């Protein structure tokens, strides 16, 4: 099945990391671990990855990075006391599944 998205790892440096022109051309999705999703087979997505010097990852590699981040956060959460877990703000991090 042809993939819909491509993934890379790039650190968001702030202003100019994603500009309005890029944002108007493609849809970005950022995930834990500095993982970014952009459309596959797309000129603007490719140009943006090159601009931010992103390290391209397969979907499985990107999923592994995100999952490691989430699992670390889940382990930290699980180790908390019941009182801390009862803080409604402090919900257990949910799993994230990347799309192909």
């Amino acid at each position, binding site marked *: 099945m042809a993939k819909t998205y491509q993934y890379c790892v790039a650190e968001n440096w702030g202003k100019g990391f994603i500009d309005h022109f890029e944002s108007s051309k493609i849809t970005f999705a950022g995930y834990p671990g500095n993982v970014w999703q952009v459309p596959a087979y797309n000129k603007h997505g490719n140009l943006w990855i090159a601009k931010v010097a992103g390290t391209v990852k397969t979907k499985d590699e990107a999923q592994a990075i995100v999952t490691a981040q989430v699992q670390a*956060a889940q382990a930290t*959460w699980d180790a908390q006391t019941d009182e801390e877990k009862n803080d409604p*703000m402090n919900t257990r991090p949910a799993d994230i599944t990347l799309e192909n």
Partner: protein
Amino acid sequence: MATYKEKVGTSVVNFAGNYPGVVKGELWYDSTNKDFKYQFPNVSVSSWSTGGNLNTGRASMSNAGTQGSAIGAGGYSPPGRSALSESYNGVAWSETADLNEARQLSSAAGESNTSAVVFGGGPGSGTTTKVEKWNGTSWAEVTDLPSTRAYVMGLGITNASLAVGGQTPSSSYLTDTDLYNGSSWTEKNSLNTARGYGSGVGSTTSALASSGATAAEPRSNDVESYNGTSWTAKSDLNTGRSSAAGSGSSNTSAMVFGGEPPGPPTAATEIWNGSTWTEIADLSTARQYLGGAGSATQGLAYGGNSGGTYYNNTEEFRAGGPVGAWSTGGNLNAARAALASTGIQTAALAFGGPPSQGPALTEDYNGTSWSEVADLNNGRATLGAAGTKASALGFAGNTSNYSESWNETCWSSTPTLNTSRSYVGGAGSSNTNALCFGGVTPTVTGATELWNGTAWVNKNSLNTARRSMGSAGADNESALSFGGNSPPGTNVKSENELWNGSSWTQQSPLNTARLELAGNGTATSALAFGGAPGPGSVVGLTEEWNGVTWTEVADLNVARFNLAGAGADNTDGLATSGEGSPGTISASTEEWSSSSNVIKTLTD
């Protein structure tokens, strides 16, 4: 099958080139290029771009301000609640004095990063009535909320704000609406539906409360509108959610973004026009408990959390709309650089220039062509200008203190400036109302002088002494000075300062630092265009000022520096002459239109 004429009511026009009389969607035949063409308005789509990152990633902050001037105070990131406070200037976040009390799930109202009020917070046994006010330097405790609550919707400005809804320490949702006037709280009419975790935007006379959690629906899409007296139910959001952020100015102009729908946090953004919610551009990073500030056309999203990550990401929203463009106008009769210009796009005056290019030449523009009129008495370049085509003032230049008044017929000398200089900035409404600032004497200066029709009077200097800056301003009590440079070295500046009649204050800087650029407009609606970002470089970059931030728009067709700018505001600009590359002088004039069209060619 119906013919084109039967369907459209006219035959296809045959025209050599681009047909100037075309209406939206109409087809014409370009006999020169042998193409069928059509035209439509050029518009940009709404989008989010990344802004400067928070210094400390966290969720559930208190948020207030605008896209170019916001605060984020308190919040949560493991291991607990925070007293940190950060200030955003449109470019970067900087840490400020801490809150007196660490808090999360509190709310805020405020107009900028120098004026805000934070109230309430929680959760559970930590829920508080405490209120703190920010003056740009420190937080001070002020009158408590009438009741203990967290997850409140805060909106308005510091001394006219509302605390709406929320949750009690025992987790009951509230309908309470309380008005803060800067010193005390007054109970107002309640929400129809008790809720917390919602998004509140607007003012004390025109507000919107949307999304959140209610007793019946933990991810609500309920919306209520406030008119200063009472709350009324409005059309639902498309996506129900809690812990979303919002931005907006009234009950007819608002936006909701992010939050927690059923399932993982969302990036979805919806915009409200007073009657319906429309889904528009998503955030780049889906998150909940994020901060929101600004308006429905210029929103700000920052912080928040998702998947155990506490983000420091900031995103800036820009609403879609017409795309502006420069088009060519009539050429100057005598090409020259370092000249001055004033007036509007259809009635402008350009004068001065270097010795070899006609230093005393004056030309007036009627929107189509330039005509030579009476010369300056003292020919010179690098001078400043103020006024209109009919009533103008030319001052300084070539390190002189000359000042000359134009009465639509001729120039006459006026009392001179107190400080001789060149490469100055200028603003003003007429030959009796002007402001001269900055320049080189030959050392760089920030000196400001005000012309009252009789004499030049010394005023407070620019905070950053500069030369070769762009300038705008409707009169001598309201002006803007942007860019320029401050030797030694090139030391190019992006600084932007606002004149209020007595002093200059720093504003959001240009996106691109440069010198020898031009500007036009007023202190709240201006354009900056052209210039040199550094030695040997020249740009056609154009930035639009809306009173808060600079936004890049379409470039000049001819990149140049040492050009002249005129025009009423950021919808009416005129770029005249200038230097395209060292030694290449352009006579070209370009006219800015805040809307433009795209011409497409039909293909097989």
